[in-house]
């Protein structure tokens, strides 16, 4: 497995910060706009360390009054509850403003994490960005 060559896990090992840099698939985040919708692209992992950057990105959009948000997770390979918490804490606010946070591109592994906690009942989990844009333009009434 890449990133482990320098690390001897047999027996006692004291980690250093430098070694963390060797862990593959670091976190990256990017915000763009398409058809008047904010698209936040997540890459790598969102955990308790990187979630504050994700939170800041969502907050930047909501504070600017941009409440139609798509979070593209196609390049996201891991999320913990710290990342899920960002979706939780903003969704009421954006819906009150007539917007939504739509989540797309989930890998089976990441999707499983969302589904364990029942996110599929409260959020649109969609295939990709075009599908999510379409859902904003033509919302589906269910029930």
């Amino acid at each position, binding site marked *: 497995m890449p990133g482990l060559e320098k*690390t001897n896990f047999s027996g006692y090992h004291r980690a250093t910060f430098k070694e963390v840099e060797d862990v593959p698939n670091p976190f990256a985040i990017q915000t763009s706009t398409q058809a008047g919708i904010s698209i936040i692209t997540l890459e790598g992992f969102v955990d308790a360390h990187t979630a504050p950057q994700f939170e800041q990105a969502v907050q930047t959009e909501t504070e600017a009054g941009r409440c139609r948000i798509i979070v593209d997770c196609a390049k996201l390979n891991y999320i913990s509850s710290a990342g899920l918490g960002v979706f939780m804490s903003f969704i009421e606010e954006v819906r009150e403003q007539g917007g939504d946070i739509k989540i797309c591109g989930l890998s089976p592994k990441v999707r499983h994490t969302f589904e364990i906690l029942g996110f599929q009942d409260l959020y649109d989990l969609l295939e990709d960005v075009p599908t999510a844009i379409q859902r904003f333009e033509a919302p589906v009434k269910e029930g």
Partner: protein
Amino acid sequence: MASVERKFTLHVPSSTENLALIREFVTTVGSQAGMSDTDIGKLELAVDEACANVIEHAYGHDVSKEVIIRAIIEEDALRIEISDTGKGFDPATVPQPELDQLVAQRKSGGLGLRLIKNLMDEVQYEIVPGQKNELRMTKRIRKPDRN
């Protein structure tokens, strides 16, 4: 051949920066134990959640403190022990509201313990506040389906 219990230990400074390293450690051990990718993913998430709790709540982000993660591979199970000397808490007293309630209250936390319980087969806490807190979790080893 008699099975040999294999033990691995990781000591890391209490910083969320080290969560990635902790996940690498447990996924490597899970792989060595012969677990399926799905179960390794569950183990990875459970240990991350538990260690994030220690770093943020037990130690309050005090990087001079240390989180210790022990992994013990047994014949049919992988045992994980996470210990700290920080501010302990009784998980039984921590409310675990449903997702819709957390969303309505605009909370960003409150899911970690629920995830841990859901992902692992056994979860036990031993808490002596300020002295030693230990979370012991077990994941049974189900060999990957080769069909």
